[in-house]
C-alpha cells in the first residue's frame, strides 16, 4: 500500500485514538505528577445534639484561594510513584537493610499495598490464562463435532458466562458459595467440616476468584477457536484420515499448528483482560484478601474523602507499564512470525 493511501486510510482511526486514548493517558500522567494544595485549617465551634465542641475544619475560602492560584495542585514530580502506597522505594530500601533473610524481606515487600496488589494481579493473570486457552480449545473441538441442529443452542449456552455482566456473575457465585448456599453447603458436606468457608481464608478466596476468572473467560477463547476451526483446510484432514491418523493425531499435527496464531491472539487478549481484573473482587467482597491494581485505582477514586487523583493516575500509569511489559514477549513473537511469513 502506498504510504499516502495508508495515511488517509488510518487517519480517522488515528485521530480517534489520540482523542480518546492518547490524550486521557497524557492527562492522567500529568495528574499523577501533582498532589493537592495544602489545606488551610481553622478552629471553629461546632454545635450538635450532643453539645458544643471546639473543632478544626478546612477553611474553605482560604483553600479555594490557593486552589484558584494553583488549580493543578502542588507539583510533586514522581513523589507519588515512589511513596508507600505505590512503588515504596524508601520502605523497600529500609527492608533490604534491616532484614536478614530473603523470606523476611519478601514478607515486608508483599505487605506493601502496591506489591500485594501486583502479586494477586499476576497470579490471577497466569493462573487463568492457560486453562482458558486449553478449555476454550477443548470446548470448541467438542462443539464442532456436534450435529448441526444442536450447535446453535449449545453455542449459546456455552457463551452465557461471557454474556452475564461480570459483577452480576460474581455476585451470583458469591451467594452460591456462601456457607448456606448450594455450593458452599455441598462442599461442607463433602469435606465433613461445618466450618469450612470459601470466603474466610485468603487462599480459598484466591482459588474461588481464579475459578470464576476461568469460567468467565473460557467462552471468549471458545468463540475465537470455534471461528478459526471453520477455516481448517479439509484436504489435509481427509488425507490424514485416509493415511490412518487417529483423531488425536489429526488434531495434534494439523489443527493445532493451523490454530497457533489464533492461540497467541487469545493469550494476548486474555493477559490484557486479566491484568485489569476488578469486578470479581467487588462481587465476591474479596477486597480484604485480594486486591488488584484496578481495585487500587477504584479505591483512590472512591475514597470516603476527596478523590486521590494523583494516586489513581500513578497507579494507572504503572498498570499501563505493567501491561506493556507483560505483552512485550508475545508481541515480539508475533512480529517475528509476521516477518518470516513475508
Amino acid at each position, binding site marked *: 500500500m502506498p504510504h499516502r493511501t495508508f495515511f488517509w486510510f488510518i487517519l480517522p482511526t488515528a485521530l480517534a485514538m489520540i482523542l480518546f486514548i492518547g490524550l486521557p493517558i497524557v492527562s492522567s500522567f500529568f495528574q499523577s505528577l501533582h*498532589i*493537592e494544595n495544602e489545606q488551610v485549617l481553622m478552629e471553629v465551634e461546632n454545635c*450538635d*445534639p450532643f453539645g458544643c465542641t471546639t473543632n*478544626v*475544619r478546612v477553611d474553605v475560602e482560604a483553600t479555594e484561594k490557593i486552589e484558584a492560584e494553583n488549580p493543578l495542585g502542588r507539583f510533586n514530580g514522581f513523589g507519588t510513584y515512589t511513596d508507600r502506597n505505590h512503588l515504596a522505594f524508601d520502605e523497600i530500601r529500609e527492608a533490604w537493610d534491616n532484614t536478614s533473610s530473603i523470606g523476611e524481606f519478601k514478607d515486608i515487600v508483599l505487605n506493601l499495598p502496591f506489591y500485594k496488589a501486583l502479586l494477586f494481579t499476576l497470579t490471577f493473570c497466569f493462573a487463568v490464562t492457560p486453562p482458558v486457552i486449553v478449555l476454550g480449545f477443548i470446548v470448541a473441538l467438542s462443539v464442532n463435532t456436534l450435529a448441526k441442529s444442536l450447535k446453535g443452542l449449545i453455542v449459546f449456552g456455552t457463551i452465557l458466562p461471557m454474556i452475564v455482566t461480570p459483577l452480576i456473575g460474581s455476585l451470583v457465585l458469591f451467594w452460591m458459595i456462601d*456457607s448456606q448456599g448450594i455450593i458452599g453447603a455441598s462442599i461442607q458436606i463433602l469435606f465433613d467440616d461445618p466450618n469450612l468457608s470459601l470466603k474466610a481464608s485468603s487462599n480459598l478466596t484466591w482459588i474461588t476468584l481464579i475459578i470464576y476468572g476461568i469460567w468467565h473467560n473460557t467462552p471468549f477463547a471458545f468463540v475465537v477457536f470455534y471461528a478459526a476451526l471453520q477455516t481448517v483446510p479439509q484436504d489435509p484432514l481427509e488425507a490424514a484420515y485416509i493415511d490412518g491418523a487417529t483423531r488425536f493425531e489429526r488434531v495434534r499435527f494439523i489443527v493445532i499448528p493451523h490454530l497457533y496464531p489464533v492461540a497467541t491472539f487469545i493469550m494476548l487478549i486474555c493477559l490484557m483482560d486479566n491484568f485489569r481484573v476488578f469486578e470479581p473482587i467487588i462481587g465476591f467482597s474479596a477486597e*480484604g*484478601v485480594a486486591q488488584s491494581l484496578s481495585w487500587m485505582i477504584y479505591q483512590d477514586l472512591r475514597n470516603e474523602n476527596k478523590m486521590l487523583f494523583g494516586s489513581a493516575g500513578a497507579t494507572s500509569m504503572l498498570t499501563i507499564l505493567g501491561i506493556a511489559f507483560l505483552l512485550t514477549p508475545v508481541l515480539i513473537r508475533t512480529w517475528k512470525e509476521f516477518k518470516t511469513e513475508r
Partner: protein
Amino acid sequence: MKKLIIALLISFASTSVFAGSHSPCGVTSGSINILANEFTTYRIFMDEVKSCAGPDADFNVTHSVDHNKLQVAALSANPAEFSAKLVTNGSITPLMNDGLIRPLDDLVAKYGSNLNDNQKITIDGKIYAVAFMANAQHLWYRESILNDLGIAVPSTYEEVIAAAEKIKAAGVMENPYAGAFKSGWNLGQEFVNMYLGHGGEFFKSGSAQPNVNNEKGVAALNVIKKLTELSNPDFLTQDTNAVKEEWESGNVALMHIWNSGAASLLDDEGDQNIKADTRLAPSPTVGGGNKPATTLWWDGIAIATNTSDENAESSFRALVGAASSTDLANNNPNATVWLIKGYTPGDTAGPVVDAASRGTTPYPSFPHMSLMHGALSTELVEFLQGNESAEKALADVEAAYIAKATEQGFL
C-alpha cells in the same frame, strides 16, 4: 440579667410567631433529588419527605449504602447531581471540607419554626444541617439463650466474650457473636468504637499526625480479634444488613449493631419467636474504661451548594417538613431515636440515651478523619486473619494514612 432573659424570651416568642408563618409542605416548583444511605429508618423518613413534598413535586431519592463514596463527586459537579444529601456527623466533614453544602440559616428561619434548637447543626455560627435522629451502635442479645445458661447481660466486652464462649461451649450456637466486620468502612468503624472505648485519640493533639500505633490500639485490636473468633468465619464479608439477616435466622445470640436496626429487626416480618426474644442493652465498656466503646451519631439533612436556589428551597421544605413532623416520630417510635419536637421515646431508645448520658464520644469530625477511617478499613484485615501482628497492622495504618494525607495536603 433579668432583662436579658426577658429579651431572649421575647425573641424566642417572636421567632415562633412570625417566622413560622410558612408551612414547609406542598412543594409545587423546583425539583427534589436526594442522596441517602440505605436502611429501614431512612425509608420511613423518606416516605414522610415524599408525602410532605406532595403529589405535584418533582421528587427523586437514591438510597445507596455507598452514599459516602458517591457524595463528594456527585455534589462537586455544577449543577450537582443531587439537590440534597442525608448526612451524619461522619459524612458531613468531607462535604464541609470542599464547601459542597450550603448554610441553611435563611431557610431555617423561613420554614424551621417547629425544629428543636438541638436539631440545628451549627458550624462556626452557621447552620449547615438539620438533624432528625440520633443513632449509636450497642449490644443486642437473645434473652432466652442468656437465661438458659444463667448468663447476666454483659456490660463489658470482657463479659461479652465470656458469654459468647459459654454459649459456644454449651453447643447452643457455633458462632454466637456478630458484628459488622466487613472489610471497608464497617471494619474501620469497629476499630473506631473499640479504640475510643479504650480512651484512644486518633491524632497527636493539635495536628493531623496519626496516633493509633500504641498500647490502646493494640488492646482494641486484640478485643476485635477475640470477637471475630466467636463470629461467623465469613465475618470479613458481613456488613450490618448481613448481620441482621444472621440474627433473624437465629444464628446469633449477641451482636453489636446500630440502634436503627430495630426498625427492621422488630417489625412484623421474619421469625416472630426470635423477635420476641430480642433485647437491647447498652453498649459495653472495654478494658476497664468508663465510656461505652461506641460512638454517637446524628443523622440530618443538608442541601447542596451547587444547586439552584429554587431546588434548594423546595428540597429543604420537603425534608424539613419530615424532620419536624411529630406524627412521623410518634407513629414510628421504635424506628430510631428521633430528635423531633414532641417525640415520646419508644422502648428501643434506651441504649442511645444511655450512651449519651455516659459521655460517649461522638464520631470524630476532624477534616482528615475520613482518611484515617479509610486506612483502617484496608490495613486491619491481615491482622484479623492472623497473618501479621497488631503492632504491624497499626504501623501499616499509620503509613497508609500518612501517604494519603500528604497527597491530600493535610500533612
